[in-house]
Each structure stands twice: as C-alpha cells, then as structure tokens.
C-alpha cells in the first residue's frame, strides 16, 4: 500500500478512480434526493442531467445554448492562448538567456504570479471597455504571468555544459542559446504552456462576468441570476471537462513533440 513506486494494473487503477467518483455521486444523490440539503443549494444529479439536455438543445428556439456558449469560450481561450504563447515564450527566453534582461523584467513579472489577478478585471474593464478586447486581455494577463517565469526557469534549468560546449565549438553567444539552450528547454517550456492554458479555464468565468453576450462564464452568471442551480452546475462541469480535455490533448502533443524528455 505505502509504496510510491508501485505499478498498478490498469484495471485496479481505473477501478479505484471510478469507485471514488461513484461514491461522491452516490453521496450527492442521497443528500439531494432525500432533501438533506436544500434543493436551492444542491440540485440532484438527475436535475443537472435534465438541465444539460435542455441547454444542449432548446426545442423552442431550435438552437443549442450550450454549444454556442462553449464555442464562444473556447474561441476566447484559443485567441488569448495564442497571444500568450507569442509574447510569453519569447520574453521568457530573453529573460532566461540574459541575467541582465531578467533583472530588469522580473520585478515587473514575478509579483503578478501571486497578485490577485481577478481584482484586476474591473481595471481592465475601465481601461479597455466591456467588449471582447478586455476579456481577451484579462485572460492573456492572467496566463502570461505564469508562462513567462516558467519559460525563464526552463532556460535556466538547462545544464550549463550545453552552452559552454557550444560556445567552445565556435558558436556565438546567441547561436549557443539558439542551438543548445532553447532546444533543451523546450519540454519544460511546453509544460509552462500547458499550465498557463489550463489557468485560463479557471479565469474564463471571471473574464465573462461583465457584459458577455455568450459564453460559459456568462451562462453560469446568468443561471445564478435566475437561481437555476442545475444550470450553474452544468456550466461548471462543462468547463472542468474542457480543461481536462485541453490538458490531456496538450500533454499528448508534448509527448509526441519531445519523446526524448525522460532521458
């Protein structure tokens, strides 16, 4: 039992996972089904399924609210994610490549990792309005402050022999960075991208809190306003599912791109 390196058969592994999730579902069903917790606070699982079906296909309007919301949120995360990578990776690389750049920029970046990014949302709204721009910028800011330091750390974690040996073989300083340090840092940079994109899913509700016409965060906020707890739960579950899918997809991609990382 207490052996961190024990290899579990896949059956056992899955069984334990499914078991624990089922247990929580049963407790949930019992608590809500027997009204041990007020209906307004905790909807029953089947109510959530009803709400899911309703959101998935609105018969009267002939459209899927859930799909529209998901599409909008995914697009926001995608656009912000691309911008985060386009800016975060180069900045992190420059910081990791030069202690001088790092000293100049880290006081501007590092404190934000522990800053209440959520509190910045009203500021973003004041500065950039209530439209798409401020939402994307908010997501961007929330994620980029994680990505930059992680990219920098990835660069600094590369053993210095790679740099020294490349320089010794005739590389200019930048060539040594480009051909020896960056390639070695790539797997950890990929980890940074995975973490920061995952972080965006936790910020999406905040981003869509103000004046979103459509989106999962908006769906949750709206459902709360109309006291529809089942719909709030559906929204949360969908976001969690999307985050898990994004994570799994990116982890898979990373393994494909950097199969050598373990060595």
């Amino acid at each position, binding site marked *: 039992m207490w052996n961190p390196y024990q290899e579990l058969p896949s059956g056992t592994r899955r069984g334990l996972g499914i078991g624990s999730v089922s247990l929580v579902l049963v407790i949930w069903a019992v608590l809500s089904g027997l009204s041990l917790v007020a209906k307004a606070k905790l909807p029953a699982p089947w109510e959530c399924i009803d709400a899911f079906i309703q959101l998935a296909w609105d018969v009267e309007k002939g459209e899927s609210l859930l799909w529209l919301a998901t599409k909008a949120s995914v697009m926001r995360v995608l656009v912000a994610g691309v911008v985060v990578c386009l800016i975060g990776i180069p900045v992190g690389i420059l910081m990791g490549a030069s202690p001088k750049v790092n000293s100049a920029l880290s006081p501007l970046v590092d404190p934000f990792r522990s800053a209440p990014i959520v509190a910045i949302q009203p500021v973003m709204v004041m500065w950039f309005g209530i439209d798409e721009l401020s939402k994307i910028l908010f997501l961007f800011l929330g994620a980029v402050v994680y990505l930059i330091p992680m990219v920098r750390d990835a660069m600094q974690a590369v*053993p210095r*022999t*790679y740099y*020294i*040996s*490349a*320089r*010794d*073989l*005739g*590389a*200019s300083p930048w*060539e040594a960075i480009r*051909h*020896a340090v960056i*390639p*070695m840092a*790539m797997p950890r940079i990929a980890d940074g991208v995975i973490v920061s994109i995952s972080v965006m899913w936790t910020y999406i509700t905040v981003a869509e809190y103000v004046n979103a016409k459509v989106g999962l965060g908006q769906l949750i906020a709206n459902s709360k306003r109309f006291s529809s707890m089942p719909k709030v739960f559906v929204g949360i579950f969908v976001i969690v599912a999307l985050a898990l899918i994004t994570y799994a997809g990116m982890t898979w991609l990373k393994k494909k791109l*950097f199969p*050598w*990382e373990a*060595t």
Partner: protein
Amino acid sequence: MSVSVELKGIGQSYPPPEEGGEMVEVVRDVNLTLGPGINMLLGPSGCGKSTLLKLMGGVRPYNVTSPTAGEILINEEPCTGPHDDAVMVFQTYANRPDLSVRDNVALPFRFGLWKKRVPQAEQDQRVNEMLESVGLAEKAELVPAQLSGGQNQRVALARALVLRPRILLMDEPFGALDAQTREEMQHLLIKLYKQQPCLVVFVTHDVTEALLLGDRVLVLSTRPATIADDFEISEPRPRSQTWSRSTEATKMKERVLNQLHESSTGKGSVRVSI
C-alpha cells in the same frame, strides 16, 4: 603541423565562496610549453586540472578575471577567449537528445563561423568520414538515448574532431565509462590521433591511462596547482601489455604515484590568500 600552447606564469584565483572569505588560489605560476602530441595532465582530484585545461583552450569563466596572472599564447599569439583552433571534449557528452547522431556530429556546422569556413559538400563528407572513424556509421540515424555511454562519448569526440582542431582538450572524457568501454575508447583515441595528429591535452586521474596514452606526462600538485613533475614517454603506441609490465613503465608509474601521494599529504598544500 606546427602548433603550440604556451603558458607564462599562469595563476588563477576565484573569489571566495562566502562573503568576507579568502580568495581561493587554484593555479599558481605555471610555466609550460606544449607541442604536438598527447599531453597527459595528472593530478589529485580538485587540484585545478580542469581550470588549467580550460585556460589552454580559451574557455573562460563568466564572472571572474581569467587568468588572474600571466599570459597564454596559442601558436605564439595571446589567447584571451574561445579559440577557433581549440576544441574541448567534456566528460558529460553534451549531446542534443533531440538530434540524430549525424546531426549531433554536424552541429558545429550550424554555427556561422564553420558554415562560412567549410563548404556544404565538404561538411557532409567530413561528417560521414568521422562517423565511419568512430564506428557509428550504422547508428547515424539513432538518437543519443538509443546509444550506450561509450557511444555517446564517441559522438562528442566526433563532433570535436569533425572541425579538425589543432588543439584537442579532453577533460576526463572517459571518466564516467566502465573499464571495458574505457579501454575501447582509449584505443579509438590512439587510432584517431594517428589519422589527425594534433596537440592533445588529456586530463585524467588514472595513472595507467596516462602511461598508456601520453607522449608527455605532466603531474600537478594539490591546490594551488603547480607543475610537480614532467616527463616524456618514447614508447610507440599502441603500447603492449608487456611494455606496461616492464621495469621502465613500472618505474614511471611509481614515480607518478609517489608524486601524487607526496603532494596530497605534503606541505605543499597550504592555501595562500591574495
């Protein structure tokens, strides 16, 4: 081939590891002229062998003045930084795990300096020849993780020699290998040296290795390193077991071991601050 490395009154001190401490003197007043051949650099561990070796190739630490004293001449010209004619092979292979063996050997040709100097066709030819020489021609498309430690060190060696350096610096290159692989690598080095004679400086703490490979053996004292002994071996390579057991070889071995023993226990190891 004329090539020379000359050290004139070389000294190297590093700032104290803790604030307020004394400067750590690693190398003191080394005067030395090296010519073509395999020069073995022996010394007790931590005595400053590597520091001296790096200085010879122009590999400088980033954060300290280096050398602290004296002057280094490569081919009679002062050397202050990385030297084009000198290439270093490290104990850690520093192979790129994402590149094939071939691309690892060809890596220096991605750098502007060598791209300009060696035309593409010659680059390919040199890489193929080198892969052949180190016995990795059939493994050219594999990646480092698929190779053994010895094979990885061959890649590193090939990457250095593909540049046809006039000065080859080796920092305990076979130190991490098992005994048998180590022997294979020593024979490989002898073969490669025959193909591409140059000035080799080879750091080791293994006396047998020094006697097996060296044209000249330099023994360093403990920190601060000074030249404690310096002799030549005229026996042609490859050296047979019979020679290794001969009186001549045994005497040399004793001479080196005594010197190493003396310098690691003797009074010479007093640390002096600047």
